[in-house]
């Protein structure tokens, strides 16, 4: 698709964000990461990235369920969508908008979330609307629950981590976010633990979900202080290593020379 756009005579997407919705998770992951250990895939990524640079656009690959593509219509014609009940589904534009929707909040989901996290159902949980004011006081020393849209999830995680580290042993946060745009909000901190990925049918009140997009439950758990345990690998690392090769000093000097340029 990108090279097809490059071949066009005029810059149709220059300065724009191109959202590419696909049910191919490998392509989505590789494009968003921008690198792959596989040589063939790496060559493909280089071509895509160079096309992106040439087009002057920003490519956002979004992984969606195959059913979403059928509902949207791209993959629908060959699946007989026009003679099925899916034909009555919302329009293409609305479907695209719903992909980026937040999960709907319901108080009835709170016990289910606590159960998934292995916490007692009596744990007090405060719901924090993502479009409310983000003050720190109602966050510290309690358990809060957020339902941000995927676009906002990164900001929510950064916000709660920035403020939560002030009192990590009394602060706990749950974040319930649809599984798209993971490269934006995933791997921000090792203290953000993924409790699980749930299909809409697995949790209560799934009919409220517009599209069959899985939901990720993230947890920033209360921190329990411990002193580091000494593992066998650590002990081995503290032992003297094998003798350095005879030309080690020369290698180090060359590296130092380069570093000092």
């Amino acid at each position, binding site marked *: 698709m990108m090279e097809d756009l490059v071949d066009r005579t005029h810059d149709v997407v220059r300065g724009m964000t191109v959202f590419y*919705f*696909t049910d191919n998770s490998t392509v989505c992951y590789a494009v968003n990461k921008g690198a792959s250990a596989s040589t063939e895939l790496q060559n493909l990524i280089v071509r895509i990235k160079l096309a992106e640079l040439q087009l002057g656009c920003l490519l956002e690959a979004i992984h969606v369920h195959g059913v979403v593509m059928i509902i949207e219509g*791209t993959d629908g014609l060959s699946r007989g969508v026009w003679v099925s009940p899916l034909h009555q589904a919302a329009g293409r534009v609305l479907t695209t908008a719903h992909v980026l929707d937040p999960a709907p909040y319901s108080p009835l989901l709170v016990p289910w979330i606590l159960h998934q996290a292995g916490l007692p159902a009596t744990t007090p949980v405060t719901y924090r609307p993502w479009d409310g004011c983000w003050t720190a006081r109602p966050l510290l020393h309690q358990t809060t629950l957020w339902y*941000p849209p995927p676009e906002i999830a990164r900001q929510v995680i950064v916000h709660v981590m920035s403020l939560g580290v002030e009192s990590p042993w009394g602060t706990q946060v749950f974040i319930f976010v649809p599984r798209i745009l993971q490269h934006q909000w995933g791997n921000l901190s090792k203290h953000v633990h993924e409790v699980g990925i749930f299909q809409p049918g697995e949790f209560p009140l799934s009919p409220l979900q517009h599209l069959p997009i899985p939901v990720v439950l993230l947890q920033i758990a209360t921190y329990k202080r411990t002193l*580091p345990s000494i593992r066998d690998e650590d002990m081995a690392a*503290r032992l003297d290593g094998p003798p350095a090769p005879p030309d080690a000093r020369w290698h180090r000097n*060359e*590296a130092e020379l380069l570093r000092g340029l």
Partner: protein
Amino acid sequence: MQKSSQNEAIGKDPVFLNKPDTILPQLYLGGRSAVGDASKFFYQFPTAPGDRPYLGVRHPTIGLLYWYLGLLMGSANSPAVAGRMGSAFIRLMQEFAPEMQVKHVARQFLRQYLQPKVGPRPRAHLRPAVLLFAHIDDFFPPWPHLGEDGQRDANLDGRGHASRSSSQPTKISPPAPCVKYCGFMCDTTATPTLRIPTDKRERAVAILDYVMARRKKELLRLTMLVVYGTLLLLVPASPGNLGQTFLRRSCNILYANVDPTTVHVSTYIFYPKMALDDATWADLEWWRRALRVEMCRLARYEKASMLAKGWGDGSGTGTLGTVMIASGPYSQWMGFFPPTFSHSLRTGRNYGHSVR
């Protein structure tokens, strides 16, 4: 023979460090920012009694635990304890300064373009907020520059001065549209952009020139590690993280002999000589050209309210997806925060008193 470890009796509390690419999308178009480095930050706090069992050193023979009464340089827990103070500082600023009570930066354009009824609409009376990022002892407050509202701008500058009052004078960057933070230049003169500082860029080019002049010879693996490490640090300033793509082959070659499950990698495996293939040299050449043309990373593209959406199965066998180009007018997304904003601002001096 067993070596002792300084961090053997030191806990590792959670610490959160902002990344440049996390900060960049939240900067204001045409905004200002400053940087303050808190003076002797580690040495300003005596350790709390609750922290002391996790901040000490164990006697190697009798096993007795000695506690540190202050934060020391080089301990694993000092950044976390000092970061708690920085986090508390941000919280206090947000509580006492109404213009710092932030909400989200919603990419409103996305939802509104697709379906006006879906997303929350921006409200006209809401005003942008002053942000505050902390990187242990470096504080970075970006705020919007509102030329038409001189009084408010002066007040915001006053807040900036208040937050810098405890900073080291020689390490303060005064309010400007382009300041250095987290090792990169945050330039907000136009669309917020992350740039590589000139000294870093020139050094990287010099390193690449040096290595590429020896292309025909065998290379030392240790020197290639220096090249790889230097370029890896510059990846956040490449557009769309493109730099990462052009470092992958080098990484594959450098770490080919390293077992990914190994916890501690011996440095001796990096002593042998090595050779790079043509594709890897081409990647390094891309880096050299990109650095020479001063590559940078934009927070968003200038037509960020325009959408082009494509649906495809990614297999390359289909119809190349469906691309829909918006044909209507577009406006620059400003990334405004909708805070609860009060017009009764206090001056920087009064604010300083209220914090104390």
